[in-house]
């Protein structure tokens, strides 16, 4: 009895040994010829793209459209931000000075205000320059020009205030400039008491533009992120549908003993080809679309230089690469996820 039991155990052990040996051999043959396998995967991927031309075209078009939408979102955000920045740049603080100040006084005031690190530039015009500006502004108006005889001119220059136009880096924080203008002895003396500096007047405008710029920047990032997610979802759904219609193929390949990587590979290659073509189409359409729109947008005072600089330099190739790269990555990820669903079913 014990002998029979012993025999049985011996047989079991032998069977286990033989099985494990066979399985090891199978695993080894699986790792053979990776380059040959890869070239077959690429070949069948490319063939699959051609043989499923309708599905491939649909997926490519959807990918191209979503990539274009993504580009439009990013461009809109950049344009809005740079336009807001440009408008902020145009804002200056005007400090009205007493009439008839000497060049030396003006120079001293200039030095003092420039000592503030927030000051970007200062433009000073004395009474005579202000008078010249007045003349230029009223050039067509004969009624005014005709009454300006020498006496009148001298009187006007004497009454004309000099001005300081101060441009700042940060329009949100004018406290340091305010401090100089209100507390410095020279400024207290030379600033016109009756006409207050414009920083209070511009405050509302500054706040509006600042908030616009902030909205443009953060909103643009959020919107681009949202569109990126939507794009991925749309592309994923399209590729998933394409693979869903071919789930039987995946099952068949599994049944005849194909390795997962060998089944998955051609689907990934197909999706990558879709991504590549979609990237090329999207980049080309976006480029020509922007070239067409840019002068029209610029005519409305919208700052498009940030994008124009990229598209009209040798960075254009980089833009193409980004589009193609995005297309390939999104396509590959989507296909991988979609195939895995059917591949992991037993």
């Amino acid at each position, binding site marked *: 009895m014990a002998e029979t039991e012993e025999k049985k155990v011996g047989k079991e052990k032998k069977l286990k040994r033989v099985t*494990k040996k066979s399985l090891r051999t199978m695993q080894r043959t699986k790792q053979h010829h990776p380059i040959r396998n890869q070239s077959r995967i690429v070949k069948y991927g490319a063939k699959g793209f051609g043989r499923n031309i309708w599905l491939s075209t649909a997926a490519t078009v959807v990918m191209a459209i979503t990539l274009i939408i993504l580009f439009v979102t990013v461009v809109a955000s950049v344009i809005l931000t740079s336009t807001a920045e440009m408008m902020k740049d145009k804002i200056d603080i005007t400090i009205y000075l007493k009439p008839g100040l000497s060049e030396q006084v003006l120079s001293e005031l200039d030095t003092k205000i420039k000592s503030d690190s927030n000051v970007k530039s200062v433009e000073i015009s004395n009474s005579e320059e202000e008078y010249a500006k007045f003349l230029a502004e009223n050039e067509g108006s004969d009624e005014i020009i005709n009454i300006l005889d020498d006496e009148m001119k001298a009187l006007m220059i004497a009454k004309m205030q000099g001005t300081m136009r101060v441009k700042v880096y940060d329009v949100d924080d004018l406290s340091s400039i305010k401090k100089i203008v209100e507390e410095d002895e020279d400024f207290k003396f030379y600033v016109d008491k009756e006409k207050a500096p414009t920083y209070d007047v511009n405050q509302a405008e500054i706040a509006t533009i600042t908030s616009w710029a902030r909205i443009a920047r953060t909103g643009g990032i959020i919107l681009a992120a949202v569109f990126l997610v939507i794009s991925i979802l749309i592309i994923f759904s399209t590729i998933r549908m394409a693979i869903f219609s071919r789930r039987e193929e995946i099952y068949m390949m599994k049944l005849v003993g194909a390795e997962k990587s060998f089944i998955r590979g051609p689907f990934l290659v197909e999706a990558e080809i879709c991504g590549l073509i979609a990237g090329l189409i999207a980049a080309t359409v976006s480029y020509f679309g922007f070239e067409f729109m840019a002068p029209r947008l610029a005519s409305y005072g919208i700052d498009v230089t940030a994008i124009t600089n990229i598209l009209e330099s040798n960075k254009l190739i980089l833009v193409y690469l980004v589009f193609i790269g995005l297309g390939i990555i999104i396509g590959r990820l989507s296909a991988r996820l979609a195939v895995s669903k059917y591949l992991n079913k037993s």
Partner: protein
Amino acid sequence: MILLDSVTKKYPGDDKPALDSVSLHIEPNEFVFLVGKSGAGKSTLMKMITKEENPDSGKIIIGGIDLDYVKKRHIPGYRRRLGVVFQDFKLLPRRTVYENVAFALEIAGMSGKEIRRTVPKVLELVDLLDQAKKFPHQLSGGQQQRVSIARSVARQPKILIADEPTANLDKLTTQEIIQLLKKINDFGTTILVTTHNENIVNNLQKRVVTMRDGKIISDQKNNGIYKLDGTPTPARVVQMPGHALKRQSAVAGQAPSQTRPQRRKVI
């Protein structure tokens, strides 16, 4: 070559087990019909062999491999050692006949040169060399099944299992397919065929294993006869004139007589 020892499988939600303590031993080079009505457990048994399903209990050894040790990662390699033919052919619809057969060799890592040498030979065996560039949908059911057989034998497996290979085919094509399987068996491949077509079983005179309600109810080693109602009948009891005639004709190398008496209708 194929050994099942007390294999039991019960699907969740079912009252009865699909396989109830099934034991079966198939020797190398045997040709075995596995017969029984729908729901008898034939397909479940096939799925056990292809490792699509795992048994709840019992042991399965195929070609010296104990399936208990075959893990998920081993399954593709294990399946490549088998030839499998399906009722619905399971051909890759977007690949040509040539590519379908080549696929079986490519997944085994065979070189392009070897594939170019092997595929035409296999297609010649199934008489489809002239259809190599066609897609499955351009072929008839019989031709598709021949492609499926070509794909399964391309790697020269020691075991070929065919799940209802003739279910979707007409009488003439069915005979062609069975003759093809017979030819493959003559080359030394062990063949297990499930069917509920009594004609092919009774004409070929091979071992017949009959299943009912998840159990093997009869195992007739030679000249097995199968009745459509699933009742196993010993060969010596039913001696139909048709069989005798056929055997004689085969010996003489002639076609069977067209005037042979009508076979007794089996209910």
